[in-house]
């Protein structure tokens, strides 16, 4: 055991981590890109992830795969990013607060919209073009809403955990989810989803 620790201390992890950049870089980038609003920020977060991996190399246990370990680091870096970006207060929301409030006020009209589409999830996911549209709509969300929505509706994380991790009250969380869902629905309506509008449910 002592020998193993000694070897680990002497061995440089640089070669292996450089290989991981090639091997897992795309996956990490895709993971980050789904969760933050810009290409540059996604790249920065992936870079920070590899630097952390280098720093915490000694703590890496081989019982999980490098991919799992890297994704877990990246996930925490993304949460840290959003925590730093506070305020959470909806009144002081910096990006799109006004638009979001207007959207919420108009929500009754949106509910009543007779042109409302009938979404067919399987069909949407089959088409690359539509998947791209979904990602674009997600990107259009204010960043903080996007993070909350992604954790809940992409990762299926529990409400309790999300509120704890992002230091949110349940009522603020519910308002953000409601508004995010309305904005996404609005985005789908604007972008048409033409092949789906005639679907019968």
């Amino acid at each position, binding site marked *: 055991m002592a020998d193993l620790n000694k070897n680990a201390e002497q061995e440089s992890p640089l070669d292996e981590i450089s290989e991981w950049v090639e091997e897992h870089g795309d996956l*990490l980038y895709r993971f980050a890109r*789904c969760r933050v609003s810009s290409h540059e920020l996604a*790249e920065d977060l*992936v*870079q920070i992830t590899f630097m952390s991996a280098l720093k915490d190399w000694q703590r890496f246990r081989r019982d999980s795969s490098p991919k799992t370990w890297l994704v877990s680091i990246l996930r925490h870096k993304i949460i840290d990013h959003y925590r730093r970006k506070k305020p959470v207060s909806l009144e002081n929301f910096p990006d799109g607060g006004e638009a979001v409030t207007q959207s919420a006020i108009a929500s009754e009209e949106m509910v009543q919209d007779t042109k409302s589409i009938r979404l067919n*999830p399987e069909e949407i996911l089959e088409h*690359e073009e539509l998947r791209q549209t979904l990602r674009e709509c997600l990107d259009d969300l204010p960043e903080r809403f996007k993070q909350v929505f992604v954790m*809940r509706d992409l990762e299926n994380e529990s409400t309790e955990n999300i509120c704890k991790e992002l230091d949110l009250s*349940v009522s603020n969380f*519910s308002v953000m989810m409601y508004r995010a869902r309305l904005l996404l629905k609005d985005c789908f309506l604007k972008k048409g989803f033409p092949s789906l509008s005639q679907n019968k449910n």
Partner: protein
Amino acid sequence: MKLMITCQEASESLSAKMDVPLPLAKRLLLQTHLLMCRKCTLFKSQLNALRKVFLGLEDASSKDEIKMPDSSKAHIKKILDNTDFKNL
């Protein structure tokens, strides 16, 4: 006690119900509203579909060509190479 809710209140409850358990009184008001409102019933099915589609998006997206630019990978490797990891 309030006996009816508006479509906006119903839509808020429909969204909240997907994330947290609703109190009994709110659940009853929502059920009553849905019995009478076709549009909110449609909204409910849209919310469910929205959830389903996003839950499947990440798996489905693995087929798409979203790649980190090679120049970015090279940049990260260069930074790693220039890092004195023993002093991190």
